[in-house]
């Protein structure tokens, strides 16, 4: 099994990324390229559905941090959903749960940005 695979789909204006496996210094470039590709295409509202993400190191957090200002400058955002407990702990330990909107599941995340998308 590969260390990381990334599926992608679109729900309205929201690009949903589903990383599966491990994001560390070895796999982070693939993750970064997926995020950067979305931003290049002008898709600034991105939901990371982390239901199959077992692990993320600071390399992966850095990839998200590197794009947060860009997407927000374009009235977009990076949302998180379906975090496994150990992945949530990493985000929470570093205070990232204050910086990003974290949702229990994908539906909640999409519902939260729906009014913004209409507006």
């Amino acid at each position: 099994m590969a260390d990381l695979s990334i599926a992608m789909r679109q729900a309205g204006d929201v690009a949903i990324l589903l990383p599966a496996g491990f994001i560390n210094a070895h796999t982070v470039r693939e993750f970064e390229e997926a995020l950067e590709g979305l931003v290049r295409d002008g898709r600034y509202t991105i939901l990371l559905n982390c239901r199959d993400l077992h692990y993320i190191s600071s390399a992966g957090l850095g990839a998200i941090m590197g794009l947060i200002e860009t997407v927000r400058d374009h009235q977009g955002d990076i949302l998180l959903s379906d975090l496994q407990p150990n992945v949530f702990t990493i985000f929470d330990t570093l205070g990232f749960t204050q910086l990003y909107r974290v949702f229990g599941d994908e539906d909640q995340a999409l519902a939260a940005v729906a009014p913004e998308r209409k507006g």
Partner: protein
Amino acid sequence: MSVAVSMEPAEFRLVIPSQTRYLNLVTGLAKRASLVAGLDDATSAKVSIAVDEAVTNVILHAYHGEGEHSVELELRFTEQALEIHILHSGQGLRGDQVVLPDPKEYIKHPRKGGLGLLLMSRFMDEVRFKADEVSGRNECCLIKKLD
């Protein structure tokens, strides 16, 4: 039949090439070792993250991403703690050179990098760096106490 379990400290070593492709192997080992030491699942996951960060630092910063070197992990099981020593002969880091980022400042001014040391210090009970300029052998020691 009964099996006698030695209470003497036990230790073993693993040597890997300085390549990030082996990170998953190392973190898997760290998690399993933590469980064997008696740590719970959540704590074991934290130990494995700390080890990932420490080994990544060695590969990317001490060895500048050069893959032909070695990283040595020594795991020591004692009654009090699990100790993971990460030894290398790349660029050393002394404890007094380590500056942890302030998470609040980090969030105000997001940037890439700088979080690995913070995760290590938050997830372990002790993180020690030793740089031996004479021998060229350097070490990062991660300690998790067994409560």
